[in-house]
């Protein structure tokens, strides 16, 4: 189960990178960025997961050596990372809109005025 998660997150990251490198459309580039981000999020969650652990909600008095729960820090990190991913998508989409207005296309091979 855990191994499957690792494989899936690796697959998502590679798929995202593949999408960014191979697809010649700005929208697909943005989608690739998102997929890559999801892959990393899955990786973070998987790192903190303990099979059979409870939710990490304890006060200091309740905490015992035998209490078994999933690692809370990666979950906090994932939340942050999801927010950042949403910002990346929003920002890149707004840039795509402006680029479409200015260049009249979303083909990356047309949008290459700065080169050399």
């Amino acid at each position, binding site marked *: 189960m855990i191994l499957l998660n690792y494989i899936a997150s690796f697959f998502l990251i590679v798929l995202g*990178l593949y999408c960014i490198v191979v697809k010649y459309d700005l929208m697909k580039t943005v989608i690739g*960025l998102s997929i*890559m981000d999801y892959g990393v999020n899955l990786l973070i969650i998987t790192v903190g997961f303990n099979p059979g652990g409870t939710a990490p909600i304890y006060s200091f008095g309740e905490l015992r050596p035998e209490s078994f729960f999933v690692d809370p820090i990666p979950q906090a990190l994932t939340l942050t990372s999801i927010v950042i991913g949403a910002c990346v998508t929003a920002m890149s989409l707004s840039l795509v809109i402006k680029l479409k207005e200015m260049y009249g296309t979303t083909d990356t091979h047309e949008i290459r005025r700065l080169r050399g």
Partner: protein
Amino acid sequence: MNHYPILAIMAYFLCAFLIVVFGKNRAVRNILGFIGTAAPLCLLIMLAEPVLFNGAIISYWMGNRAPVGGYAIGIALEVDALGLFFGLLIATAVFVAMIYSFSYMSHDDNEPQYYTLFLMLCGGVMGLVLSGDLFNMFIMVEILTFAAVALTAFRNKVFGALEAAFKYLVVGCIGSTCILAGTIMLYAQAHTLNFAQLAAFLPGNLNTATIIAYALLFIGFCTKAFLVPFHPLAADAHGAAPAPVSVLISGVLTKSGLYGIIRLTYILFRTMGLGTVQFWLVFLGSVSMFLCVTMALAQHDFKRLLAFHSISQIGYVLTAAGLATALGVSSGLYHAMNHTLFKGLLFLCAGAVLHETGTTDLGKLGGLSKKMPVTTVLFLIGAFSISGIPPFNGFASKWLIYQATYQKAVESGNIGFLLVTVVCLVTSTLTLASFVKVTQSVFFGQLPKEYENVKEVPFGMRLGMGILAFLCIVTGLFPGLVQRFLTGPASNAVFHANSYIDAMMGFGYAEKFGLADTLPVSFESVGVWSPISWLCLLLIMLFAITIVALTSKRDRISAADKKAQAANAVSGPSFLDGAPAANKYELFFGGEESTYSQVGGDDLFWGFKHNWRHYFSFMHDLHSGIVNDYSLWAVVALALAMLYAMIIL
């Protein structure tokens, strides 16, 4: 005093948000911007006395959550001499850029948004260099990447601004994702995100996972420093962004990447003792240095040219830092400081030219020294500094870098480091050559008619440039003091990771992991080099050049060329479109052919560019401007870094 670092970071962010709320009025906005950049500078200068001079390390736990049982739980800020050195650099550059912005940006609309983003970027970088926590660092990386992308696209009607911003966003996000993935892989192994604890845990526990994390983090910080193969992004972004933002991107953002690399390799992983890692850094630095300076030679745009030079100078810093000697690190840090100063000055001068003439195209400009004398003088100071002309700061740091590479070659007996010295020297020469070209085509020569009414820039902009020029001269005149009070303590901190760990986690924590400060620190620098060896090197070079000159094919004018010459004599010279070699001086000695006789930037090194035309056209085709290509380079770099790390470490 412990609260100063967090106050410095907060001042940026607080003023950024206050400008959103109260920024409608120009006076309020400017005052908030001034306070927002001046206050952190003052706070950091007050920290200089304990941290840089007395060697204290300031640790600060947010919410006072100190470590429990040897495990760091809370978020931490940790300021050692290295962090403070970079912090001071950044605060200074940001302060000057802010003063400059008041005049420079006064004609743009949406000014409040500009200042907000500007301060967010500053806060992000400051948070990054003062942070003591890996995930915190990632958040700051994201903040500064976002702010930098938005600022690049700020003048979105400018040629290529949106395009540059999009490319930067895509590749920058690949880099940020690398940093995040590396962070989480380290967390999976060490179950902590605190630098000090990681630094104690990692050196003894290098396995496949941590090594891949190392490669991921390294590539992530390379993206932020725009090292090869990420240099096209810097060039695009600089060309489109407003001048003060170029200062931020080249002087401040790249420093955050360099800081990350130094922190990662020297303190977190302590892999600098390995020759392979040294080779990796020095190789990457040398390639960045040489490749970008040749790219700069072929540019037609003022700011784009400066951008390539910027990455070239970053290559110097990485090369010197990769030597893993005290002299190397301190000279690298010295050059990093000088890079911020002179590159900031040059970008501000380019901004001044753009502000007055409305163009940065080298082919259209000329003769501005008559109209803008102050800018010209300031630009010359910057140009002399970056080319390494003696009284200015570039000379001092480059000289130290030559010595450091040479000394490393002598110490390790590896002839490859001598080659690095030669690459450094050649790059410096090419830098000088390309600044001769810029100076000639922008400030000297004949003034085009449309710029007859150009005036000197306003006082605010001259003040900003003046401060940087003054600092360029001061740091060049007193290299001993700089070494003693700034770069010396910072490089000491680089080599004393144990005190970094102990300051954070309690005394004796590092010893429990059996870590020793292995690398010796000595600044036996100036005067170590032997003049006789240099003389021998010179003679060998001279001999080599003679052989090449004697054996190379002489330029004989072929029959076809003679015919073309005869044709030209009738129809007038046509040196613009692929002229035969015999005609190339027609431009200079063509008599009264044309009344307008400006020597264009492209014509100055005609022969050089002609002989290297295959290389230049190859490089031009390689930098295709397609975002897919640049992402492919990033992926390839990542794959290579991982492979190298796994094979070698």
